[in-house]
């Protein structure tokens, strides 16, 4: 059983309510029908009910285990509008009504109000729009003010590493980098279990070089430790020091619970993170699952525009495990 199959089995035992705001996308319809039929979760499709019925009928898909909601005719629409207005200053009822007529915002409010557990979108919306909608409705989790993403890298031999951020933050400052480290540790605990060991990477190990780029990483480690002293996190480390015990023993000067045994790698920027995940994927034959969004009060996932039905099912399972 591969990791995704394992996640799907676990998701079945939780049977979470998953909102799919992009109910007009055929791939979403197929994935939702499968998720409902296999009881991986309880799919909620948003969009024009008649069109969804028709599309599902044409695709020969069962709607038996799928809930369809059309935002404007939803009985609790006004309640959600009121909740939105209470949450956001300066927004009138009429503007909130406009906002909630958009499926991404409406879906976010379903989750925020407890009428659904998590949200999966991005098949036909830009990542930026999805993140903005999630920030406005679901909001960030405590101590976090940055949306970020991670990849689950499964190496041959089933060694699992989390890489972050390889998809969202182009040039995070030290505060954002600290948050990315903390949030990825939370995500690791939820999905994999066990003790997260977070290494903040650089081209220097504990002061072996001097440069403002290294200072940023050092500041991030200090801030992250201050915010979450209970998490094992350390740096700045070169990648080999973070991952290989024998290298760590030679290079580090201070004792570290992370060096040589990291299971989470935090990259200083998107250049390094994105390059690293692709190199690991293609040169080390690793499976790469992601990017998976993190940092929100309730789970939200971003699909790639080219996502296939099986990708959507996998992402939905991962999302439901983060609740």
């Amino acid at each position, binding site marked *: 059983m591969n990791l995704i199959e394992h996640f799907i089995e676990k998701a079945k035992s939780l049977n979470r309510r998953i909102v799919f705001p992009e109910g007009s996308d055929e791939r979403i319809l197929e994935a939702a029908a499968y998720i409902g039929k296999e009881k991986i979760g309880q799919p909620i499709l948003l969009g024009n009910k008649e069109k969804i019925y028709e599309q599902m009928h044409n695709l020969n898909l069962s709607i038996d285990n799928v809930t369809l909601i059309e935002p404007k005719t939803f009985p609790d629409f006004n309640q959600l509008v009121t909740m939105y207005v209470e949450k956001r200053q300066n927004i009138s009822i009429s503007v909130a009504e406009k906002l909630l007529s958009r499926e991404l915002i409406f879906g976010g409010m379903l989750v925020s109000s407890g009428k659904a557990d998590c949200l999966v979108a991005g098949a036909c*919306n830009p990542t930026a729009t999805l993140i903005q909608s999630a920030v406005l409705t679901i909001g960030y989790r405590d101590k976090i003010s940055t949306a970020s993403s991670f990849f689950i890298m499964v190496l041959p031999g089933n060694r699992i590493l989390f890489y972050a951020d390889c998809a969202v933050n182009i040039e995070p400052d030290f505060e954002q980098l600290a948050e990315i480290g903390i949030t990825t540790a939370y995500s690791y605990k939820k999905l994999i279990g066990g003790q997260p060991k977070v290494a903040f990477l650089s081209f220097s190990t504990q002061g072996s070089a001097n440069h403002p780029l290294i200072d940023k990483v050092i500041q991030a480690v200090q801030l992250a430790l201050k915010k979450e002293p209970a998490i094992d996190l350390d740096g700045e480390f070169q990648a080999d020091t973070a991952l290989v015990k024998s290298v760590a023993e030679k290079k580090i000067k201070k004792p570290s619970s992370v060096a040589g045994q990291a299971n989470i790698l935090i990259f200083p920027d998107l250049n390094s993170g994105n390059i690293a995940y692709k190199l690991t994927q293609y040169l080390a034959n690793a499976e790469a699952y992601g990017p998976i969004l993190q940092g929100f009060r309730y789970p939200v996932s971003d699909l790639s525009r080219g996502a296939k039905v099986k990708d959507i099912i996998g992402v939905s399972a991962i999302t439901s495990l983060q609740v």
Partner: protein
Amino acid sequence: MDTKEIEERVKKVVSQVLNVPQDSIKIESRFVEDLGAESVQSLELVAAFESEFDIQMEEDAALSIKTVETAIEFIKKYIDAK
């Protein structure tokens, strides 16, 4: 509706949503850099423009509208197409 009227109404909406004085809003003002908007507020601005002008803008219009001037241009396009 002429451009001047659209401009005045856009400024009124921006002032309400971003809670900034209307006279501090210039045509060249950038929402984030000059008027202190969070980037997420662009979705709210678009919804407020839709409500004010009774138009329906594209889902990703919010990503393109960065200044008062671009907002006016976008809105004018939608009004002209009505």
